[in-house]
C-alpha cells in the first residue's frame, strides 16, 4: 500500500492526533446529550434554601395556587447532595457567604443557580454607601444562570425564570445570551 502505515502502539502525541483525525469519534453523543438535557430540564430539583423575604414567595410558588410541581420543579430537597438548582432567595449577608459557597460545592454537577430578587442581583434596596453587612450580588459567590428582578419577585416571575433555565439547559452549549 502506498499509504504510510501507522504504528499500532505509539506514544508520540503527533501520531495520536493523526489517528484521531482518521478515525473520528467512536460514539456520537449528541442525541444522548440532548435527551439527557431534556430530562434534566423537566425535573429541576431546587434546594430548600430561603435567605429572606423572597423565600416566602418561593414557598408560595411551591404551594397550592402556583404549584411548581406542574413543571416538575416542586421537589424541594433539604439536602444539597440531592438538589440541582439553587434558588438564592433573599439578601446574602457576608456571614452567610461562606456557607453558601459550601452548599454550592456540595451540589452535584450539573447544577444551576437562580438569583431571585434585587438583593441577589446587586444588593438591591440594601446597597448604599456605608453598607457593611451584605454581599452585593450573588454572582460574587456562585455562577448565576438566571436573574429575576423584583422586591420580592412574584411567583409568576420565578416561573418565568425556571422556564428560561429550562431553555438554557435544553440548548446545551449552543445557548446564546
Amino acid at each position, binding site marked *: 500500500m502506498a499509504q504510510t502505515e501507522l504504528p499500532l502502539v505509539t506514544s508520540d502525541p503527533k501520531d495520536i492526533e493523526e489517528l484521531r483525525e482518521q478515525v473520528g469519534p467512536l460514539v456520537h453523543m449528541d442525541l444522548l446529550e440532548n435527551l439527557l438535557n431534556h430530562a434534566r430540564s423537566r425535573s429541576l430539583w431546587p434546594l430548600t434554601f*430561603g435567605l429572606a423575604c423572597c423565600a416566602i414567595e418561593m414557598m408560595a410558588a411551591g*404551594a397550592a395556587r402556583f404549584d411548581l410541581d406542574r413543571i416538575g420543579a416542586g421537589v424541594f430537597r433539604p439536602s444539597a447532595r440531592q438538589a440541582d438548582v439553587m434558588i438564592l432567595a433573599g439578601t446574602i449577608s457576608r456571614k452567610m457567604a461562606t456557607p453558601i459557597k459550601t452548599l454550592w460545592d456540595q451540589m452535584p454537577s450539573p447544577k444551576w443557580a437562580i438569583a431571585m430578587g434585587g438583593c441577589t442581583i446587586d444588593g438591591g434596596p440594601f446597597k448604599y454607601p456605608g453598607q457593611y453587612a451584605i454581599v452585593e450580588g450573588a454572582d460574587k459567590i456562585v455562577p448565576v444562570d438566571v436573574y429575576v428582578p423584583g422586591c420580592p419577585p412574584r411567583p409568576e416571575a420565578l416561573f418565568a425564570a425556571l422556564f428560561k433555565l429550562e431553555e438554557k439547559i435544553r440548548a446545551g452549549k449552543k445557548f446564546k445570551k
Partner: protein
Amino acid sequence: MNSRFEVEQDPKSRDTYYLNMGPQHPSTHGVMRIKLHLNGERIISAEPIIGYGHRAHEKMAENRDYLQFLPNPSRVDYLGGMIYNIGYCQAVERAMDIEVPERAEYIRILCNELNRISSHLLWLGTFLMDLGAFTPFLYAFDDREKILDILDRITGSRLTYCYARFGGVILDIDDVFLDNVSNFCTYFVERLKEYEKLVIGNVIFRERTIGVGIFAPDLAQKYAITGPCLRAMGHENDVRKDEPYGIYDRFDFDVPTQTEGDCFARTLVRMEEMRQSIRIIEQAVNDMPDGLFIAARVPRRIRPPEGDYYFCVESPRGSFGMYIASDGSDIPFRLKLRTPSFSHISAMPAVMAGTMLADAVAILGSIDIVVPEIDR
C-alpha cells in the same frame, strides 16, 4: 463542658456530641444556626448562633431621612410587613404630632388585621410542615393567597408593603375592596372550623405538641417574652389592649390566653387570634367612615423635636418597638428596632435544654420566628 446552661447529666456518660442545625436547615425558617449539645437524643444545651440574615437596617436608618427609611420596616419582618410599615409611620407621626384622618385609621386597622391573619396562616402551614404534615401547608397557603389578592389590589404588592405614609395611607380603598374583605370574613370563619378539625384534633399533632417546649413561668420576666408566646403562658397582655395605638381602643375583641405555655397552647392562642382579628375586621368594615385617606397638611420636612421616642405595636410575633433618638435633624440619630423574635430566640437555651432533638423542631416552629427580624 463549656456550657453556660447547666443541665443534669450523667458524668460517666461519654456519648455526648455536638450537632449543628443550620445555617441552612428547613426548620430554622431561614438562615439561623443552633449548636446542639446532645446526649443521645436528649439536648443538654442549645446555643443559637444568629447574624446570618443581618442586613444593617439600623445603620441604614442613620444614613437616610425618615421618609427614605419607609420601605425598610416591612422587610425587617416580611410576614407582618403591613403592621411594621404602619407601625413605623405611627411612631414618626407621634413624634411629629401629625393628625391622621378617621378613614385612614380604619383602613390601617383593616390592613393590620388582614396581615396578621396571613402571617398566622403562614405560621400554621410551616409549623405543621415541620411536624411532618403537608396538607395544612397547602390549605393555609391557599387561604393566604386570598388575603394577598385583597391587599395586592390596593397596595400593589404581595409581601413587602409600603402602603402607609406619614399622615395616612397612599391610596384610597373602594367598595369592591370592602366587599372582598367581608366575603373573605364569612368564608374564613367557616374555614377556621375546618382547620381546627384538621389540626387540633389530630392525635399525632397532639402527641408532638402537648407538654413540649414549656416556657417556665419565670421565663417571661427573665427574657421579656411578648405576644402569643406570653399569652400561652397565662398573661393577658396585648399591646393593642394595654397601650392602644391607632384606634384599637374603639374595637371590641378578646385577648385569648392559655395557661400551659407549651407548643399546643401557642397553637390554640394563634388560632383564636385569627378569629379575633376577623371580629375586628368586621367591625372596621361596618364602621368605615368617609373622608380623607391622608392628612391634608403633612409637614414637608420630617424633623421630630430633639429627644427620645419609643413606640410599640403588636406584631404577629409579639411587641415590636421602635426607639428613635432624634437630634432635631431630618436623619435619625439612632433608630433601634426592638424585635420580639430576638427576645424569644435568646430564651431558647433555657427552653430547649432537657428536651428531645425532635422537639427542638417543634419548639422553633411554634414560637414563629422570622430570621431577618432577629438579625435585623
